């Protein structure tokens, strides 16, 4: 790398745009790491600005003005236009400056509730005051903060209402569920009574198998009235699995009586319609199967019991 005296020379050439592309690239790389040279470039750049002004001044032809303004008027719009809200902000600022001026005769600050000819923002007046952008910025800031606070309040209120709605819905659902549960329980009880009082009642006790040695169950069976099944100490089901009750008869294939889902304490109570037209059961079994059940048993046996 060159010595710093040479780099000082580079700074001047750089500011004038007089470096070759190679030298310029090298110097810019140096600038990125050298505060001294950056400061030098900054200081010399004002000289470049002065050189632009230092030429003999002469007036362009009046026709040029018309040509420039006409060409721009005919050309496309500026690339980025501010939104209508920015213009409205400028109008706000203008209205604000007017409002603050006390009325000369009464000494009071005039307050106009309705827009009239004098409060309609006059764009030529806006132009004349260079402080308007500042006011516009301040008004816009105040407006933005105000809207922000209002929006936050609305959000809180809506959130509050949503919570209350959800609670009410949950209570209604719970009420519906309780009614449905009660109906089901009553129906089950009626079915159980019907089954248990049936003249053709048979009982089958089921014992836990190696997969669930603690489990036990009892089935009451009536061909005419149905099947009542109660089980205890059934292991909790893994996701996607269900217990399925099978009736074994003299026929070779087991017949599905239905699905069982134990509660958290491992108990299951169910009343099933008797599968129609089957012979007297010789045995019953409970297996673990995929959710929804299967036509023929595939999983491990949890409970098995033989008819007397």
């Amino acid at each position, binding site marked *: 790398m060159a010595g710093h005296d040479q780099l000082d020379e580079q700074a001047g050439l750089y500011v004038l745009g007089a470096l070759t592309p190679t030298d310029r690239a090298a110097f810019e790389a140096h600038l990125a790491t050298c505060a001294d040279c950056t400061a030098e470039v900054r200081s010399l750049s004002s000289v470049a*600005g002065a050189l632009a002004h230092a030429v003999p001044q002469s007036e362009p032809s009046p026709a040029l003005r018309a040509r420039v303004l006409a060409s721009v008027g005919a050309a496309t719009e500026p690339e980025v236009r501010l939104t209508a809200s920015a213009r409205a902000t400028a109008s706000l600022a203008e209205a604000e400056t007017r409002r603050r001026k006390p009325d000369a005769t009464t000494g009071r600050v005039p307050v106009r509730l309705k827009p009239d000819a004098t409060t309609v923002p006059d764009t030529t007046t806006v132009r004349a005051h260079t402080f308007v952008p500042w006011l516009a910025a301040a008004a816009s800031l105040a407006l933005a903060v105000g809207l922000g606070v209002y929006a936050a309040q609305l959000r809180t209120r809506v959130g509050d209402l949503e919570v209350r709605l959800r609670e009410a819905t949950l209570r209604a659902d719970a009420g519906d569920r309780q009614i449905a549960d009660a109906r089901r329980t009553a129906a089950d009880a009626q079915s159980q009574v019907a089954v248990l009082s049936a003249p053709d009642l048979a009982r089958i006790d089921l014992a836990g198998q190696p997969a669930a040695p603690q489990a036990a169950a009892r089935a009451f069976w009536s061909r005419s009235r149905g099947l009542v099944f109660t089980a205890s100490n059934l292991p909790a089901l893994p996701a996607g699995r269900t217990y399925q009750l099978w009736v074994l008869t003299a026929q070779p294939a087991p017949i599905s009586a239905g699905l069982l889902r134990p509660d958290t304490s491992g108990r299951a109570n169910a009343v099933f319609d008797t599968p129609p037209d089957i012979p007297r059961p010789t045995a019953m079994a409970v297996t673990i199967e995929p959710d929804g059940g299967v036509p023929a048993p595939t999983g491990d046996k949890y409970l098995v019991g033989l008819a007397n």
Partner: protein
Amino acid sequence: MWFLWAVIDRLGPSGRRTGDGLLDEAALERIARGDHDALAELYDRHARPVYSLALRILQNPSDAEDIVQEVFSQAWREAARYDRLRGAVAAWLLTLARSRAIDRLRARRARPENAADHRAVVNVADLGLPPDLQVLSSEQIACVRAALGELPVLQRVAIELAYYEGLTHVEIAARLEQPLGTVKTRIRLALIKLRDALAGAV
């Protein structure tokens, strides 16, 4: 967030801004909204220096007027992208004018072997550094003009070839038939004198 920046900028230490500078910024903001009158205002304040610089570089009134038209068209199109932190509006317009004029000068010279240099000049306008943070007073401009006249001839010509003709230091050395190191040193000395003149005129 633009309004926050505007507030911070106005509240910050910006004592160097003059009334004219603020007028220019306000005009650019209105131009960004499509206000033709604002462009007329900007033209009336700056067409003369822009035209004069282009005329100095191109030495031809018709070409200089083309540059003026190009510069104000560009200002109209790019007003919304103007970054006040990069320098005064006047300096921006003059940087655009110089860049375009030297571009045209090189095209006129039509020296294909200097295509790389051609690109270098275009890049002058894209420097990420403020070309001139201040709005120069007429006293400062007069002082620099006087200081330029008082420079030793070789120093002055070297500066003029670099700034008004867009030559690289290598080309200047060839034109003046001087060693490269001498040209570099002269340009540096001249710039320091001009800077001192500028500082003394504040």
